[in-house]
């Protein structure tokens, strides 16, 4: 068998070929110098492959795990035909048609030249961040684009395109959610996702209409005839700042004091005293005092103004006598009274329920008027009825008879049921009238009614008995809120010096000094910090709506108040 191996070398001038004819059946291919086909390149194994004649044909076989590629495919062995190419390291072995006298022919050529180490190393090296393809410019524009789309374009689009924001309100995150600058107050949270409930116009501050749709009935701060631009022209949101949680209600004292420190600057006719701080600068209390109970005339009198501090309630009531240590005589003997026997708190715990004679006084102060008829009592609260009760009682006694009284004539003292003659009847009724009149002098004019009431006897101008209408002040401080319930751990006498009061004309309202025992200014560190709003409200319940001209939109009719 003749095998021709042609080593081909390409140069600039042309192709050189060196033939080597071999006769062996097995030709070893390798880097080893004793190989039949010697391939001098470090990338070829010492013993790389073998070319073997197996009778019918030639085969290429790899030695061990050496890498050969038959027509591009890695193989461990392959049969060879003309035109086949076998890659061995950087060499290509190509099977060519054998010339005459040769059984099998191959060409061998170094086709993959040795790499340039420097080029190879440089091509693998990436030594600066810029070379990695990371681009500051692309990152910068990309990030800016994403930010602008998500946080500017989409929110504006949702607002500008009609219905778009509404359509997205059910989504977990709305287009304008990212604009929310802070948690809204608890009361407003039910519509907090709908930014446009309040923010109705772009670049325009929230307008009062948005608030008044629900809060139309909110009351004013000063009567309508007081014109103060700070009150009539400021928006609701000037004071009520949303997105600050519960801080939507201003409690800071400066908010009030800014005006009230010198109120004359805003309303020259005001009679309201200036105030700056509860501890340092707050006027003495001016409780409402009844000046004329009959005419319902009241006056605010400062506690310091002792001469005018007189409650003209048309009642007489010595607190001291009722609160004596040993108790008062009652129907069941001595009974020790305390404040709570008469003064019951109302259900809200703010004030006290009105004193009722029938409920609080009548157990002891029974309206019996004749010892001979202890079961008969005068009606309370109606002078005319009381007068006729007395008159009727003695008339009926006279006509009935049996009224054993020294002053009574025989006709009245007669046996009960014995008929009267006409003259006797006249005499008896005359006695009854005189007796009633005399009794009224006592009952109304001296003892029973007059114990507690101011009573006018009949006169030329007014021929009938008059018990003057009583009235006690129900609210001492109409513009301040004092919650009794919050002070129930304190003994009543701690503030109201009732044990020393002998007159109903006394005003038992404690002085501001008493409050200051516990309450300090807004920022007091040791006492109860007490800003204005602890006792006062801005929107006064005794006034009409803050914005009387506001009309609800039909959509919102029936919402809020």
């Amino acid at each position, binding site marked *: 068998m003749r095998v021709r191996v042609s080593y081909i070398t390409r140069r600039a001038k042309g192709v050189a070929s060196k033939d080597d004819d071999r006769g062996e059946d097995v030709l070893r291919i390798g880097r080893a110098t004793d190989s039949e086909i010697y391939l001098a390149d*470090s990338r070829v194994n010492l013993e790389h492959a073998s070319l073997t004649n197996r009778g019918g044909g030639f085969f290429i076989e790899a030695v061990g795990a050496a890498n050969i590629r038959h027509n591009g495919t890695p193989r461990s062995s392959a049969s060879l035909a003309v035109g086949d190419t076998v890659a061995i390291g950087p060499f290509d072995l190509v099977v060519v048609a054998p010339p005459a006298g040769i059984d099998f022919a191959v060409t061998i050529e170094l086709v993959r030249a040795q790499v340039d180490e420097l080029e190879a190393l440089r091509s693998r090296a990436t030594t600066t961040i810029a070379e990695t393809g990371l681009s500051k410019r692309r990152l*910068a524009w990309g990030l800016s684009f994403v930010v602008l789309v998500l946080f500017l374009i989409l929110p504006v689009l949702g607002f500008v395109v009609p219905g778009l924001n509404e359509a997205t309100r059910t989504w977990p995150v709305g287009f304008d959610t990212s604009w929310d600058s802070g948690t809204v107050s608890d009361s407003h949270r039910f519509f907090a996702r709908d930014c446009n409930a309040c923010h109705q116009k772009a670049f325009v501050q929230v307008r009062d209409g948005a608030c008044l749709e629900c809060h139309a009935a909110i009351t004013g701060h000063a009567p309508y005839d007081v014109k103060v631009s700070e009150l009539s022209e400021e928006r609701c949101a000037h004071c009520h700042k949303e997105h600050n949680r519960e801080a939507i209600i201003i409690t800071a004292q400066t908010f009030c004091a800014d005006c009230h420190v010198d109120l004359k600057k805003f309303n020259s006719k005001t009679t309201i005293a200036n105030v700056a701080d509860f501890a340092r600068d707050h006027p003495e209390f001016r409780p409402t005092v009844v000046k004329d109970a009959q005419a319902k005339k009241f006056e605010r009198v400062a506690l310091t103004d002792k001469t005018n501090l007189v409650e003209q309630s048309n009642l007489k009531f010595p607190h001291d006598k009722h609160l004596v240590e040993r108790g008062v005589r009652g129907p069941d003997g001595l009974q020790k009274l305390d404040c709570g026997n008469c003064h019951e708190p109302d259900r809200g715990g703010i004030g006290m329920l009105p004193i009722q004679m029938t409920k609080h006084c009548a157990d002891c102060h029974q309206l019996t008027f004749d010892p001979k008829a202890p079961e008969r009592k005068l009606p309370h609260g109606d002078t005319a009825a009381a007068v006729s009760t007395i008159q009727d009682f003695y008339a009926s006694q006279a006509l009935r008879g049996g009224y054993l009284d020294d002053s009574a004539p025989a006709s009245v003292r007669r046996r009960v049921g014995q008929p009267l003659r006409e003259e006797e009847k006249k005499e008896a009724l005359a006695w009854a009238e005189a007796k009633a009149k005399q009794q009224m002098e006592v009952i109304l004019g001296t003892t029973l009614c007059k114990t507690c009431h101011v009573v006018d006897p009949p006169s030329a101008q007014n021929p009938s008995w008059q018990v003057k209408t009583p009235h006690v002040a129900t609210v001492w401080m109409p513009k301040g809120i004092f919650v009794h319930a919050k002070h129930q751990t304190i003994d009543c006498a701690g503030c109201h010096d009732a044990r020393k009061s002998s007159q109903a004309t006394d005003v038992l309202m404690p002085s501001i000094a008493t409050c200051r025992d516990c309450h300090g200014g807004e920022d007091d560190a040791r006492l109860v910090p007490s800003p204005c709003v602890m006792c006062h409200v801005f929107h006064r319940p005794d006034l009409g709506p803050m914005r009387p001209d506001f009309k609800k939109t039909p959509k919102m009719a029936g919402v809020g108040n």
Partner: protein
Amino acid sequence: MHESVLVYRRFRYLKWAVTLTVVALLAYIFHSPSEPANGGTWLGYTLGTIGVGLIVWLAWFGIRKRSYANPESKLEDWLSAHIYLGLSLIFVATLHSGFQFGWNVHTLAYVLMMLVIVSGAFGLYAYVRYPKLMTENRRGVSLDAMIVEMAEIDRETRELAAKLTDEIRDLVFDAIENTRIGGSVRRQLESGRSGRTVAAIARIREIIPLPSREQTEDGRRLISLLTRKNELVLRARNDVMYKAMMDIWLYVHVPLTFALLASLIAHIIAVFFYW
């Protein structure tokens, strides 16, 4: 040069920044608005305006530093002011926020600003620390010269390895062909020797001595060459790492500055759009 930026004109800009910070802090402490402190009080608006003015001015530095021909002001002047006033922004912006944070565009702008400041602070650190390390590491040899030497060693080791066993040749060739200086951003930020070269050295040590004296000599030479190569790999990689450290923060600082400016636009428009 780097320290001189910090002490520039006897800390002139440090004094400015401290003054701004102290004034902002005092104003915040003594300001008692009727609502909780937030960006919408008069002080909030004031600090916000100062903040946005500072941010735009600081960002302008990126443009200013490119115009080398400007004789009006020195670049050190700008850089010194950029560093100190940039740091004072931490206080101005935090006080502007009134410590109100949430999942919204307003806090996004704040977070981006803080990231820009932190990346800038790292940049300052990198410029103070790495040039010195870089000089020490290079020992007067440039990165390119190291690579040229490595290539030379590669060529020699290939020749030597080819004379030894196929296994050794494969290991050495593999190590040569897989040694990479730098690479991806992550690889540039790491350093270290070539693992495959270390493995090749270890393997040659194992099989030495080889059957012939000549081969053993070649093996020993191979070991010393590969060891030298690996030292070069380490130094080259360190060099790349130091350079990458000095560069990488800008890839955060600059893009986030742009994102910050975008979020500031959104923040300001949002505030007045839903006033």
